[in-house]
């Protein structure tokens, strides 16, 4: 029965879904812990170190606390949208993970849930979906601070999405594919795309910071001005889902940066620079991928606790007047170079 390819395919799909959920639900809570501890260290403090050894059980304690809080549904909110919004923030990140190759192959199983040719388009389309969750949260809360937070976030995310997409065009031109697996394959042979195209990498990372509502672009939840923006009216698990969604988005963004610019699961030497034949190399590839994602997550945290928030006009000026022209020029330059190479 186990040799039947159809059944085997189904088993693989279930295993892959399990791995994706597992990665997400372990990395995300520990990113929260890492964020709190690293921020504390950067400020010469200790951070949460009481629950378990050095605070390793802190995420569990936080989760339990959120679960047992009272789930408030204020009278003045739009009930349906208000309940829907947190899910809309969390869902896209889960779905994007389906197209990201988190390893080469373990035995006969390819380490990507959906190896689709329009993978990156799918990811970009879903990435812009997060904005609906936040906009709906702001709108359905029906009170002023969430509304302002929602409006800001929509304006910000739509502006930076343009740069996000344009910064990737050179990558597509160079690799000739939108399939994330093929892009990683290209990098295993030719080296990391961040080295070929540092400007693309820079613009992408900056836009991704804005897309994830992270400092220095966390205008949507600016504590000092908006109390906490779009999620003021939320409590208990609904708030928890926002929180989870925010960090899940961060993790997906890191996974995308890793896949697109940092060579995905590969390292630039044998046996890690080719799809795995042996099962242990396959597992090592998964570990390499996770390690790279964690490094990018560290970058996120590091920048957050260093750079102050932009003013709103500065944010817009940076997006439209600096990053957008840069991305366009970058496309032209790369296109020129590629054309020259092709003709020589």
């Amino acid at each position, binding site marked *: 029965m186990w040799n039947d390819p159809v059944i085997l395919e189904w088993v693989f799909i279930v295993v892959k879904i399990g791995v994706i959920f597992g990665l997400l639900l372990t990395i995300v809570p520990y990113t929260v812990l890492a964020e709190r501890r*690293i921020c504390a*260290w*950067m*400020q*010469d*403090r*200790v951070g949460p170190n009481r629950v378990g050894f050095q605070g390793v059980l802190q995420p569990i304690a936080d989760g339990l606390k959120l679960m047992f809080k009272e789930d408030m549904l204020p009278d003045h909110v739009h009930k349906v949208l208000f309940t829907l919004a947190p899910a809309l923030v969390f869902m896209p990140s889960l779905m994007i993970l389906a197209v990201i190759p988190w390893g080469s192959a373990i035995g006969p199983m390819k380490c990507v849930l959906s190896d689709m040719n329009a993978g990156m388009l799918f990811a970009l389309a879903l990435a812009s979906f997060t904005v609906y969750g936040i906009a709906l949260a702001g709108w359905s809360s029906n009170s002023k601070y969430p509304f302002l937070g929602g409006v800001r976030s929509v304006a910000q995310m739509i502006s930076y999405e343009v740069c996000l997409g344009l910064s990737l065009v050179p990558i597509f031109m160079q690799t000739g594919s939108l399939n994330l697996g093929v892009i990683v394959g290209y990098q295993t042979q030719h080296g990391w795309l961040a080295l070929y195209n540092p400007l693309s990498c820079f613009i992408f990372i900056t836009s991704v910071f804005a897309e994830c509502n992270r400092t220095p672009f966390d205008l949507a939840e600016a504590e000092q001005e908006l109390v906490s923006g779009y999620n003021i009216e939320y409590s208990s698990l609904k708030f928890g889902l926002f929180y989870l969604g925010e960090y899940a988005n961060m993790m997906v963004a890191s996974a995308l940066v890793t896949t697109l610019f940092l060579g995905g699961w590969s390292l630039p030497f044998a046996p890690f620079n080719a799809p795995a034949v042996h099962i242990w190399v396959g597992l090592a590839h998964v570990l390499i991928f996770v390690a790279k994602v964690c490094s990018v997550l560290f970058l996120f945290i*590091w*920048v957050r*606790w*260093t*750079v102050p928030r932009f003013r709103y006009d500065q944010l817009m000026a940076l997006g439209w007047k600096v990053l957008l022209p840069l991305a366009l020029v970058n496309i032209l330059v790369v296109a020129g170079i590629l054309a020259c190479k092709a003709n020589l």
Partner: protein
Amino acid sequence: MIVERPKLTFWDRIYMPQILKGLWITLKHIPMKRFTRQYPEEKPPLPERYRGVPTLVRDPDRRVKCVACQLCEFVCPPTAITVVPGDRAGICSDGNVEKEPEDFIIDMGRCIYCGLCQEACPEEAIFLKKDYAMASYSREQMKLHKEKLLEMGGIHDDRICKWKKK
């Protein structure tokens, strides 16, 4: 008033060198010394004359020094102290002392740790100790009675020994 705007150079305007500088600074702080004090385990160093909880003391012969004169009760600004005077029957071998408090109540919910009771006391029977964490679950529990106060005060190493000289 005209605010002089600083002239920004090209490198200031592209902002990146300053961000990198900032990133380097925060990175440098990660392995640095932490300033957090792990409180319940690590108590802060207190100054020599720190005013904490007021307590009653005994003299080296283990006698209660308080003679229930009630001066502390009168001087106490928030009226935290209540003294219930009583006769000192057969406890004191010197016949000079007539009274001792039957009960001595300090309401720690009212005490402002001013130390006036200690200054007013003619018998040097009340001292402010260095303990400061006096929280409890009810107002009733905040009231410290004679036994508790004596227990916290302990024996005062009295060099004057006023009672012996009388």
